[in-house]
């Protein structure tokens, strides 16, 4: 187990700068997820930690060593690639044993380690197969096995579940989490899937355009986003965010006024961006629902099973709320929705920063 510290890390490709001096601290045994849209620099950061990309400036420290100039094999890392990167001509056993063989580990020690890891990942029946004869999930497990067998200080995962179908993805997500609980290694995990980020991480680093928008625990990121980007990126369905103007005792969107607690620092007539998660907008179906009520016409209902997503417009602004899975509701209905405005977020319309 090692800590990782990234100090003012910069990456340039010629004149194009893709990382603008980022700082991240990862504690020993911590599961850190780098998340963000395509091109945000998360994979580049991971590849720089791995030693697959050079560092333009700044420092990467693993344990107590600056590893900027160390070769990948000397950094004490193991990596699981998006497309698994298993050696096609080698069997599962040979794939897992390869790094140990190169490190001149004695044959009986190699055999013991490979079989131990095969037991952990339930791979023992596949050891003599080649990757071409494995399913996506099995390949994924072999890729993890190949990483674990090296007993590295740090595991790096580069979007490892993106090639799997939804069901298998959920299953493998749980396996990775269980594995982390068991091995307690430091893990850096890159994904663009915010559900993966929320479920796996001890620490989430949200990136955009080569800078860090926010880093913190999943709770902090979700319930206390630093800005409009983070608020909109994390959460599915995403947070409803719309232009609004501060009004007496609330905010006004078009002709509709929602009564709410206005943050200090803004005055009546000021423009801002108003955000509410769909979880905080509920159908009033007889039960006691907190919040300010408003009557709306339903545009669309999406049945998710335990709940329904209710799409409607509030003075022309599209909004998503939620209803119980058993609620009887359909498009065209006129219903009352309750806005729990105590959970509302306010953002600066100019820079997207949070107004508290």
């Amino acid at each position: 187990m090692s800590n990782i510290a990234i100090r003012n890390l910069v990456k340039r490709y010629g004149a194009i700068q893709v990382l603008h001096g980022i700082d991240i601290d990862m504690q020993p045994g911590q599961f850190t997820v780098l998340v963000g849209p395509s091109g945000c620099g998360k994979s580049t950061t991971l590849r720089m930690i791995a030693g697959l990309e050079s560092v333009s400036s700044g420092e990467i420290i693993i344990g107590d060593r600056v590893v900027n100039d160390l070769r990948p094999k000397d950094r004490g890392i193991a990596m699981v690639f998006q497309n698994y990167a298993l050696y096609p001509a080698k069997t599962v056993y040979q794939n897992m044993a390869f790094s140990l063989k190169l490190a001149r580990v004695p044959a009986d020690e190699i055999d013991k380690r490979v079989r131990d890891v095969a037991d952990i990942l339930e791979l023992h029946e596949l050891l003599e197969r080649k990757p071409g004869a494995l399913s996506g999930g099995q390949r994924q497990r072999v890729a993890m096995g190949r990483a674990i067998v090296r007993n590295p200080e740090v595991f790096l995962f580069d979007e490892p579940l993106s090639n799997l179908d939804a069901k298998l993805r959920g299953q493998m997500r749980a396996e990775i989490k269980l594995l982390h609980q068991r091995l307690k290694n430091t893990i850096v995990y890159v994904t663009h899937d915010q559900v993966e980020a929320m479920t796996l991480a001890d620490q989430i680093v949200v990136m955009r355009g080569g800078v860090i928008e926010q880093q913190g625990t999943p709770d902090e990121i979700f319930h206390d986003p630093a800005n409009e980007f983070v608020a909109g990126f994390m959460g599915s369905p995403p947070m409803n965010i719309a232009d609004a103007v501060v009004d007496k005792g609330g905010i006004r969107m078009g002709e509709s006024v929602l009564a709410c607690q206005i943050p200090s620092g803004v005055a009546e007539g000021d423009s801002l961006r108003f955000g509410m998660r769909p979880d905080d907008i509920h159908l009033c179906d007889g039960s006691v629902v907190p919040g300010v009520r408003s009557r709306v016409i339903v545009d669309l209902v999406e049945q998710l099973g335990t709940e329904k997503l209710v799409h409607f417009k509030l003075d022309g602004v599209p909004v998503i709320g939620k209803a119980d899975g058993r609620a009887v509701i359909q498009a065209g209905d006129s219903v009352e929705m309750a806005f729990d405005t105590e959970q509302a977020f306010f953002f600066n319309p100019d820079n997207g920063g949070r107004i508290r």
Partner: protein
Amino acid sequence: MILKLLRQATPYWFLLPGLFILGTLLSVPLYKVIEYSLYDNVIIEPDPTFVGLQNYADMLGDSGYWSALFNTAVFTIGSVVGHLLVGTILAMLVNADIHPKARTVFRSLLILPWIFTAVVVALNWQLLLNPFGVVNYALQSIGLVSEPLDWLGDPDLAMWSLLIISTWRGYPFIMVSFLSGLQSIPSELYEAADIDGANFFHKFWHVTVPQLKPVIYGVALLDLIWTFQLFPLVWLTTGGGPGRSTEVLSTLTYRLAFVDFEFSRASTAAVTILGISAIFTMLYLINESRNRT
């Protein structure tokens, strides 16, 4: 019923002209060569004598034939090994991560030997390897040899010189084939190998070679078939000489037919070339069908 059959036969009617031309051009000469090999005094005499397999028996007792067969084996294997070695190294070099413009320049330059005809290649190398040519001049200038070497005229050097020329002429095919193979290897495999602690040679043996294997075998066999039958390069550089030191089956066949006018013996030699080429071709086709499945 008849109409239906006629309709089903339609595509084959369109194939007929092509099949006819190809069949005539291929099968008639093939048949004729085999037929000639069973007669004596063909072409020259209006009424040649049927001798059965006598020509083959004579050929097997002829030391000239065996020496040509041996030279063909040396030339073919030497050339294919040379093509593979140089082609692989150059394919890896031009696949390296360098400036795209430089890469295009190198790729274009290195493919040049392939676009010259064999006659141009042969004449150029004759000039280069001439005792008073550039190669001898250069070797003398740097002190590697004290007096000019007769590269194509010395029996001890002629086959080596031929192999160098053949390698130079033939490597681009291997280079281009391997280059496309190299480009299809996912870079992630090399990155995984980097993390696993592999050096350049480990990566070559454990990633590049296994990934290129299907290409290597097919391309090597194709090269073997072509080189085995290669005629103009040998004929125009050494002419099979000095003496018989670079005589290969193709030059032997040509010499028997058009220098000695022994068309029966030439046909017999040609049939052996045909037979050996057919074996290589079968191997190639088997490999291709295995790759497809």
